[in-house]
């Protein structure tokens, strides 16, 4: 968790640095009066590294992924809910009442 946050911060710092270098490069081009076609190669590499780190952090930090498959061990349905709307009270509990002195007192 802490590691993921550190990596995420690092990644965004790298992204900011890439943006800053691009701006600097553009202003340099203005001085030399050349056309801007693409940022320099090392900035592109930096961009990708930053992106990857951010990706990794965003996928790790919020927690574990849960399975969406109906057949997976966690999602597997093992029993149906009792159909409580159709519950009937005329059953064997009538013959064997609960022998306790439970009372609502107040």
């Amino acid at each position: 968790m802490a590691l993921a946050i550190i990596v995420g911060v690092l990644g965004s710092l790298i992204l900011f640095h890439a943006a800053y270098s691009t701006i600097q490069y553009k202003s340099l081009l203005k001085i030399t009066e050349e056309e801007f076609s693409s940022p320099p190669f090392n900035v592109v590499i930096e961009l990708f590294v930053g992106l990857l780190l951010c990706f990794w952090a965003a996928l790790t930090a919020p927690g574990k992924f849960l399975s969406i498959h109906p057949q997976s061990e966690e999602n597997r349905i093992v029993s149906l809910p009792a159909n409580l709307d159709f519950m009937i009270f005329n059953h064997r509990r009538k013959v064997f009442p609960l022998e306790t002195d439970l009372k609502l007192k107040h």
Partner: protein
Amino acid sequence: MVTKTEESQLKNLEIQVDNGGGGAWEYLSLIRKLKVRRSDKVLKHGLSILNDSKLRSNLGPEEWTLYEQVAVAAMDCQSLDVAQDCTKALRKRFPESKRVGRLEAMLLEAKGSWDMAEKAYTSLLEDNPLDQIIHKRRVAMAKAQGNISGAIEWLNKYLEIFMADHDAWRELAEIYLSLQMYKQAAFCYEEVILAQPTVPLYHLAYADVLYTLGGLENVQTAKKYYASTIDLTGGKNTRALFGICLCTSAIAQLTKGKNKEDKEGSQLQSLAAKALEKEYKQRAPDKLPQLTTALKSLTLSS
């Protein structure tokens, strides 16, 4: 639907609560959420919360939900005094409520005064003719009195209005099953599967009904539904595995001599048998010989 995770969660909470480890309110909430029927436990632990004024006031407005839950549980346990007290407390708080009216009618039902309960439901229905739960209560009441054909009639009338209610379809299927009217039950299960296609237990029930009906076509369809149950449970449903074996041998018997698509069937059967053997080895090794003889007799008869 109760999934594996929820089931184990409920089990853990139940052990914890029964041993006095606290968490009674969480337990009761989970019971409400999963709609399982644990009336004796709800009555015991719910009352212990309700009788403790500090715990009760901690719940805030949820307190009244608990009163209702405990009242129904008390009716189910035939502790009619408790049920009456809870209903009275609710009536005091909500003098105009229809929901409390329903609860009072249910109390009459639990007491066995059917006529009065019927009257109460009728008057409640006059105010709101589309109250689904009250319609369902009437069905349940007919069932409780042993009037199964009446229950079927009420339920059919109800389903004409509320066709999308899969719980009612399930109930109708179960009633038909209890009367051994398998064709009608199969129709109801078809509706249930249409409404909730991802619940393996409905596929399983439908397959069981079709297998019971018999006949080549039905057994073939049953096999398909057993297979879909296996698909949806990841092969963890023992009954479906047995179903595949039984269906295959039944099909082989019915098509004796014709021998169409025999290869595929026996392959499926041997796969299912292997899965069964593996599961038995893991969980009940002492029953393994019985399983192997049973499986052998199935393949021999085909």
